[in-house]
């Protein structure tokens, strides 16, 4: 009984749960209709945990049906890093990510090249908090759907794309589909969440007025005292 209690306390405080999928090779794979993705992670939302998916090589993967290389649904802090993707012929995404809240998602140092129909990633959900996309190298691709798709209802921290290179990419939708396609579509439907402080009282008074005004977005200053 005591052991159980101790474990529960640790879970509630600072325990770290970690899943790592690294160093795998998918080479010369012809996917049948029985699967929609190579790697799937679903419903992993333990507090203080993170997921690392890295150093996977996808080469010569083909599929006639919709298929994604990595699929993640309702997961916590996740790193997709250092993947090598080449000679792929699938109608789908490298990363297909959906979740009510996407918090701390990092897509870094991946290389995509010489592929057909493959798009990079699709992220969708109600709210996102810090998505960072950096140091990715993408070249010589022909995609059939929006190449980078990000759609959330609200955003509370910045969405950052940096230090990446995209070269020679054609996005051509299916001839049977009349919808337009884009290389990149970012749709944050609602306004960013702004933290508001009303009737704020700050003690002690050693904090200067300047610092206070630079630190907050003051919504209702009438009842501010400090």
């Amino acid at each position, binding site marked *: 009984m005591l052991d159980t209690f101790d474990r529960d306390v640790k879970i509630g405080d600072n325990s770290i749960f970690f899943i790592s999928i690294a160093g795998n090779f998918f080479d010369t794979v012809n996917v049948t209709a029985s699967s929609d993705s190579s790697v799937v992670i679903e419903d992993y939302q333990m507090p203080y945990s993170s997921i690392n998916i890295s150093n996977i090589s996808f080469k010569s993967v083909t599929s006639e049906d919709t298929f994604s290389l990595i699929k993640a649904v309702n997961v916590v802090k996740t790193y997709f890093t250092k993947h090598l993707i080449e000679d792929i012929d699938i109608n789908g995404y490298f990363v297909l990510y959906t979740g009510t809240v996407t918090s701390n998602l990092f897509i870094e140092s991946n290389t995509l090249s010489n592929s057909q129909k493959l798009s990079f990633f699709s992220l969708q959900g109600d709210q996102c908090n810090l998505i960072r996309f950096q140091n990715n190298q993408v070249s010589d691709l022909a995609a059939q759907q929006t190449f980078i798709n990000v759609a959330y209802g609200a955003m509370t921290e910045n969405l950052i*794309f940096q230090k990446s290179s995209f070269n020679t990419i054609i996005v051509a939708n299916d001839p049977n589909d009349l919808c337009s396609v884009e290389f990149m579509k970012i749709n944050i439907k609602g306004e960013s969440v702004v933290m508001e402080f009303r009737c704020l009282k700050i003690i002690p008074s050693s904090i200067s007025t300047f*610092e206070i005004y630079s630190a907050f977005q003051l919504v209702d200053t009438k009842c501010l005292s400090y």
Partner: protein
Amino acid sequence: MSFLLIVSAQSTVQLLNNQFDSISIVPQGSVMEIYAQNVSLSNSIFRGFTFSSAGGALNLVLETLSIEECSFEEHNGLNSDSSGVLKIEDGNPEENKVISGSIQNSTFTGNAAPYGTVISAEDLSIQIIIHNSSFVDNHATAFGGVFSFSRTSSSSILITQTNITQTNNNSTVFYPQYSAFAVNESEESIQISNSTRLTAIGQVVGNFIETKGVSKTVTTFGNDFMYTAKIASDVTSNAVLKP
């Protein structure tokens, strides 16, 4: 040192230190569509986009736009209703907000589209500041201007320390009345000052500002503004630059 620092109060979509080269959309669509409150583009290269969309190459639906240290080169809007590099829209026109844009230390070179080759804005209120930037040989291949404003209200564009150069010939300009600034049924203030230079060279030099429709107010003012129109010896059009 602050008591509390909130960095998320105004979240932004940021593109920084990226290179986008040779990206084509077939048969139709913009290259990028961004719907967000704030968008920041910095230290990035955007080159060689081909697209067919009234939304332009970058279709931006936002409240604030910041562009710094970026280059936009050789983009082509292909079909007849394509706008140009930046198409700015108001996502919530019923709120009557003023959209703000800032372009600094950036270059726009060799882009072509039927209208709004560099910036087009419609049905909104927008204030744009352009500083220390360069616009060279951006061609409006049909009816509109390099900068195109349509049905804007309480809007302004302030251009300082910027070079605008057009080298045109009959193969690049199909509509001799093209203009650097096209204003259509708008309330627009255009201020050009502080060593901004507008140079037009070639067979067809077009107009400086063209107003169409029933524009409410179009005012231009500025100082230290230099313009030069050099009409080639084999000029075939009598269109001239009108400051």
